[in-house]
């Protein structure tokens, strides 16, 4: 029983960051409270991303009032696949993904059906604030489905794999890929059972993989060895992530990106409270990297996004 626990000194020596430290020493210190709405509200994120010309999935429509729901259905029928999400949702809650339509019926990635009524109810729930932080009234954002790059075939099951890069003071410090599984029901949230694969900042290649915080070697549904994973357009993706610092003003930021077949890396959303599982996926504590960047800042280094990416690629390559 005790063997399942590790000594706190050992964790500290490995530079592993705990939740309390993340909350007090990084999130509350580097993320100004007044900027949270930009990140917590996906609609606002989209607006600043468009302003800064950061690539994002196309916006199909926004449902702001109960009345809008009626008029959105005809619009949805024009798109075979789309995603409905609450603007203020968190932890992947309330995201409805429709991959195809047939005879007036909508289909989720798992193949489960959804009726027009289901879609309407989902929108109405979003508006009432069921999925939003603190239960405040919300708006539903409908965006185009990403046609994800076929290079990830076999690495993900029924869902869009995304790349999470932790950006600290504009420096990409740690990255991982989140691959959905049957257990995660097509979602890319690690606590729901998605596979996390640590990605080498230097090369974009897989380092190490975990599911439910325990190491694994192959994708549980497709049996594809996770070691073979390599993220294409890696340089472009890091630059995109690095840009999010200037765009959002957040010092400690989780950036979620996807690879679209035709448009390459795209910013999906930002997260002001990125989780700690990325350390397990990388098999390494994040603290030494954060400390190095803090030292750089303390020395008064001011670099542009491209220079920061080069610095990170050099320092954090494994």
């Amino acid at each position, binding site marked *: 029983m005790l063997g399942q626990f590790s000594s706190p000194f050992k964790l500290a020596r490995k530079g*592993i960051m*705990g939740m309390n430290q993340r909350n007090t020493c990084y999130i509350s210190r580097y993320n100004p409270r007044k900027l949270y709405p930009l990140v917590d509200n996906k609609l606002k994120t989209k607006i600043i991303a468009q302003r800064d010309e950061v690539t994002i999935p196309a916006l199909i429509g926004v449902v702001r009032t109960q009345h809008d729901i009626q008029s959105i259905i005809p619009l949805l029928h024009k798109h075979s696949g789309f995603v409905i999400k609450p603007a203020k949702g968190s932890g992947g809650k309330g995201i409805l993904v429709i991959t195809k339509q047939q005879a007036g019926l909508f289909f989720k990635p798992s193949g489960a059906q959804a009726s027009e009524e289901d879609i309407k109810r989902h929108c109405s729930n979003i508006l009432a604030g069921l999925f939003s932080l603190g239960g405040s009234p919300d708006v539903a954002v409908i965006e185009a489905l990403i046609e994800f790059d076929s290079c990830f075939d076999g690495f993900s099951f029924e869902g869009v794999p995304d790349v999470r890069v932790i950006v600290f003071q504009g420096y990409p410090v740690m990255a991982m890929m989140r691959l959905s599984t049957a257990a995660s029901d097509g979602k890319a949230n690690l606590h729901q059972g998605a596979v996390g694969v640590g990605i080498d900042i230097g090369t974009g290649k897989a380092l190490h993989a975990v599911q439910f915080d325990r190491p694994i070697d192959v994708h549980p549904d497709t049996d594809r060895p996770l070691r073979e994973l390599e993220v294409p357009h890696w340089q472009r993706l890091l630059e995109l992530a690095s840009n999010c610092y200037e765009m959002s003003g957040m010092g400690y930021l989780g950036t979620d990106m996807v690879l679209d077949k035709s448009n390459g890396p795209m910013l999906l959303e930002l997260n002001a409270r990125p989780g700690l599982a990325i350390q397990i996926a990388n098999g390494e*504590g994040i603290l030494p990297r954060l400390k190095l960047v803090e030292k750089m800042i303390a020395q008064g280094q001011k670099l542009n996004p491209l220079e920061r990416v080069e610095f990170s690629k050099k320092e954090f390559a494994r």
Partner: protein
Amino acid sequence: MSSRNTFYLIVSLCMLIGISMTLYRHIQFEVPWQPGEKRQIWSIEAKVEFDASGDSVEAVLALPQTQQGFTRIHESTASLAYGLSFVNDQDNPRAIWTKRSAQGHQEMYYKVDFLVDPKATDIYQPQMPTTPFTEYPEPYFTAANHLVKQAEEVSADAYSFTRELIKALTDEAAKSNQNTGLILNYKPKNQLIVDLLNNAHVPARIVKGLELEDGRRRQSITEYIQVFKDENDWQIFDLASASQGRPANTLLWEYNGNSLLEVVGGRDSQVTFSMLSVEQSAQSAVAPKISEADFLNFSIDSLPLEEQALFKGILLIPIGVLIVVLLRVLVGLKTSGTFMPVLIAVAFMQTSLMTGLIGFLLVVGTGLIIRGYLSHLNLLLVSRISAVIITVIGIISIFSVISFKVGLTEGLKITFFPMIILSWTIERMSVLWEEEGAKEVVLQGGGSLLVAVLAFLAMNNEYVRHLTFNFMGIQFIVLGIILILGNYTGYRLLELRRFQPLADRED
């Protein structure tokens, strides 16, 4: 950095205020640390008897005061058809019974409770008497002078002089010494010693005390000699045991030279005492003492009973909150809603644990099933939750009625659950079920219930209840601890397990 210093200052202030308030309450008001602590109380009843002659009657009884070793906490009287008034002169507190006319045997009672209290002190100093010269006819005068001279030679101050006099008048001395034997025949020993002391310009007088012995009835008062060295320094001497100082277990009923009982309009008056030793919980024993003290009394004892009962519950909430903070910050347990477990725990306080748990599971379980149906109706969130609230009320009513019919009155306690909390829990659990499956519902719901049970156990603890209710300072200490915990950046207990594969990885 200055903000950090302010933080530590605030925390230290909280702790300091909390600890000193708590200690002050304990030392000054003797509020005990433990709820079960027992204190000894002497219940003494004085019975005044006399034969009234048919005219107007006035009976005056001296009353004892808080004094060294004893705190007076309660008094009452009983007397048939007599007018009664308490006169509380500092040096002569007394009860006066009056009646226009009375005939035959009269009885009246005065009952007083004294708390055995080593920290109690005399609430007033008796006034020093004058030293009137008492004439003694010969040959007693010569004998007395001789005794006094002898005692003076071998003594240094008023007290040693008294001791020597007492020694000279003991029974053995009386047998061997003619002078002593002679003088003892003339006057009773107590009065004799007082006279001799006064003649030698040592202020002294006879005072009345009561030997306390559990279960004694019809005991009479005992006389002691009070000798003054100066205004504020006096001692009690007991001739029977030849001891100096207040005898143990003796309550001085009257120690200011006043009469014990005066009866006008009656004959054969006497006062006798019955007494009983009672072990009482320290809490109720000191309660009257606390309510008397007004200054610096940061206690809710001064509030009306109804508000006190309310506060008893409110003051426990910080303890529940502390448990939640501990479990979330130090252990890392997941709960649905930050302080929902505290609210559930408060509900458990009303229902008792088992009833509360079963009731909670029954209502939430049934609610989830009904909520499952409601979700098919495609309702708006607000009206759906409202519907759930009404459903919950329905479920609670049905369970109450059924359990009452079956004879389980415990089941009625289910009504203590706050509806809104139950409804919101059902709604959240239902969404969680749809989104993340039953497992997550069990995990988060179980986590909440576990925290709620732990918070309940802490809040329901006899010691915790006693401490939070009696020591307001505890609130500051809890606040200090919570602030310190807010500053904790170390690992949570469950993270040690979560990151274990990472830590044990080969480098």
